[in-house]
């Protein structure tokens, strides 16, 4: 794969596709977002397997069912978290609804020794890394800022400042290369983050140092209320060419294509051939977070058009058509989903508030006398209430 071959790839399967992005302000200049560039697809919205000259995939029936299970359980977890937010158990939730294929496909392409730098919506990738989903909820409930050990699953903490983690991924990948290891690093970010300087700087650094990093941009069409055309005048995957590495656009609702393309990019990184930008062209079906209302900024018809491309539905259609999964599988999975929902619900409600002294914990690795002093003052202040209660005042 060369820069030229990916950037200049001819449209292959775009004839049936309609524009999903509305251009609000037409100018005399070209409006590149109004015509959709081709994307790598291996499974059509109708559940048909199709071939692609550059990306092949050959999965066993069990692997196909595994991907389906991952997506279903991730969606179930996400729905439960959204409900828990509505019930006041979580302060906020960033739903991944609609992005299951992009996350499960890319997540299942990773090896254990690869390292993931997520944004705050990568619940499906976390699932693939073996992070217990209940661990993702602490931040949203407000009991921590992401309490898992990043090195247990090679899954870094969620990063809320947009695009910062692409530089961390690049630096980490520079370290991987220095160590002579053959693992790869993947950085997740969104179409909105693509406007951030840090993302551009991470492209520069990774290209200059030939870092083994894959940039996985989930272009879900909306950065809160701002559409992609407020972020870019060219298709995002084409940005890579200017930095000197390949970019490819994949159907982000096609789990097989996401798996194949990410796997290829990771292998390229492992071979010492440097970074790749993967743009997963997908759609955020819900709100940016539970705090916003997408009906204020986007049309119902747009959502409806993407519902027809649902990542889970299309794989189910395929499995049913091919006889890869029987009714018993789907029934068992439904029960497993409900059990997961119940487990998540119970875990969140049982999640204790942190000890109040945790305010001071881990501010510094080597300690700090100022923190010690303030901790002691705070403890004495709290203790003064305890004394009052004991004395019945």
């Amino acid at each position, binding site marked *: 794969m060369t820069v030229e071959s990916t950037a200049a790839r001819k449209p292959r399967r775009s004839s049936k596709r309609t524009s999903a992005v509305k251009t609000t302000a037409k100018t005399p200049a070209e409006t590149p977002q109004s015509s959709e560039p081709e994307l790598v697809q291996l499974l059509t919205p109708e559940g048909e397997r199709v071939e692609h000259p550059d990306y092949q995939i050959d999965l066993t029936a069990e692997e196909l069912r595994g991907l389906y299970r991952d997506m279903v359980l991730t969606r179930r977890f996400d729905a439960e978290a959204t409900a828990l937010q509505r019930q006041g158990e979580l302060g906020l939730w960033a739903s991944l609804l609609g992005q299951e294929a992009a996350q499960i496909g890319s997540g299942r392409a990773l090896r254990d020794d690869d390292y993931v730098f997520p944004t705050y919506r990568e619940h499906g990738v976390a699932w693939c890394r073996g992070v217990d989903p209940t661990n993702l909820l602490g931040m949203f409930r407000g009991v921590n800022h992401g309490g898992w050990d990043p090195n247990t699953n090679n899954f870094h903490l969620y990063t809320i400042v947009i695009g910062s983690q692409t530089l961390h991924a690049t*630096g980490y990948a520079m370290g991987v290369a220095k160590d002579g290891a053959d693992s790869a690093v993947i950085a997740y970010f969104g179409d909105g983050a693509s406007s951030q300087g*840090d993302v551009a700087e*991470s492209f520069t650094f990774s290209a200059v140092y030939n870092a083994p990093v894959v940039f996985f941009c989930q272009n879900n069409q909306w950065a809160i209320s701002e559409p992609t055309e407020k972020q870019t005048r060219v298709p995002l995957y084409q940005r890579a060419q200017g930095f000197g590495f390949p970019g490819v656009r994949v159907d982000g609702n096609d789990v097989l294509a996401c798996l194949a393309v990410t796997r290829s990019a990771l292998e390229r990184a492992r071979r010492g051939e440097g970074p790749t930008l993967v743009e997963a062209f997908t759609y955020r079906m819900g709100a940016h977070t539970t705090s916003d209302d997408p009906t204020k900024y986007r049309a119902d018809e747009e959502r409806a058009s993407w519902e027809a491309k649902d990542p889970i539905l299309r794989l189910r259609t395929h499995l049913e058509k091919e006889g890869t999964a029987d009714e018993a599988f789907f029934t068992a999975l439904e029960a497993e989903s409900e059990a997961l929902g119940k487990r998540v619900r119970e875990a969140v409600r049982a999640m204790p508030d942190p000890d109040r002294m945790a305010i001071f914990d881990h501010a*510094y*690795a080597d300690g700090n006398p100022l923190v010690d002093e303030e901790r002691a003052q705070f403890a004495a202040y709290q203790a003064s209430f305890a004394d009052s209660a004991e004395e019945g005042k």
Partner: protein
Amino acid sequence: MAMEKMSIAKALNESLRKALDTDPKVLIMGEDVGKLGGVFRITDGLQKDFGEDRVIDTPLAESGIVGTAIGLALRGYRPIVEIQFDGFVFPAYDQIVTQLAKMHARALGKIKLPVVVRIPYGGGIGAVEHHSESPEALFAHVAGLKVVSPSNASDAYWMMQQAVQSDDPIIFFEPKRRYWDKGEVETDSIPGPLHRAAVARTGSDLTLVAYGPMVKVCLEAAAAAQEEGKSIEVLDLRSMSPIDFDTIQTSVEKTGRLVVVHEAPVFYGSGAEIAARITERCFYHLEAPVLRVGGYHAPYPPARLEDEYLPGLDRVLDAVDRSLAY
């Protein structure tokens, strides 16, 4: 015992060399740090001896420098990054404040960020805009960061060693107008803790607190005051976060008077923090309110005016006189 007289610049260079030599995980990163040896030559010769993989010339992107250093630290490296000048740190300020400072706490202590950010800072060299600023309070205000500044060659050598060994991110402000000042460096002796203040001169009538480039001015002021029969104690703060208030308190309990001197604007500066804390701690020992001498609440002026803006001997002595007049 190895005792050598060298400039602050040379002491830093020797210290960085020792750090690279001692620990293969130590890296140096920054703009022009390789063949050129940095615009102040602090990294002179290091790339030649340690290679391009250890002493890394970076793209001209400060956020990228600090952001990738964070990633390298997560991978187990100990990056020392150079920001070319004080006024250029702000593109990296987001990475330093939102990421570098907080990541250890965010991970509940599971990961460490041993990154040193070196910043040549302060005025007095006749530079153009953005090359003479003193933004230390902006970093000292952020929990998770530690902020230090040496004032002499020995401290430059040893504080850099200690900063590299720290598991916390350290913002290391280098007083650029003192780079060429020479002093004795005892390279074998074991130094005191990184965040302890030093008594640079003993006295009994008033305490002057300064750090970095202003220590020299305060020592000169104390010498001048001596000729007028005033005994001034000078403390070299060395660390702006955390601050060694115990050493200041001990001194102020003895002298009863405190003047804090720094180049940075007085408003919301480190002098305000010191004045407030010492007033709390030493209220009944103080013979006069704590006074501050520093820059004005105005953009750093053009070089032809910087001598008016920067605290000099006369402004320090004026504050000393005002304090003693109470």
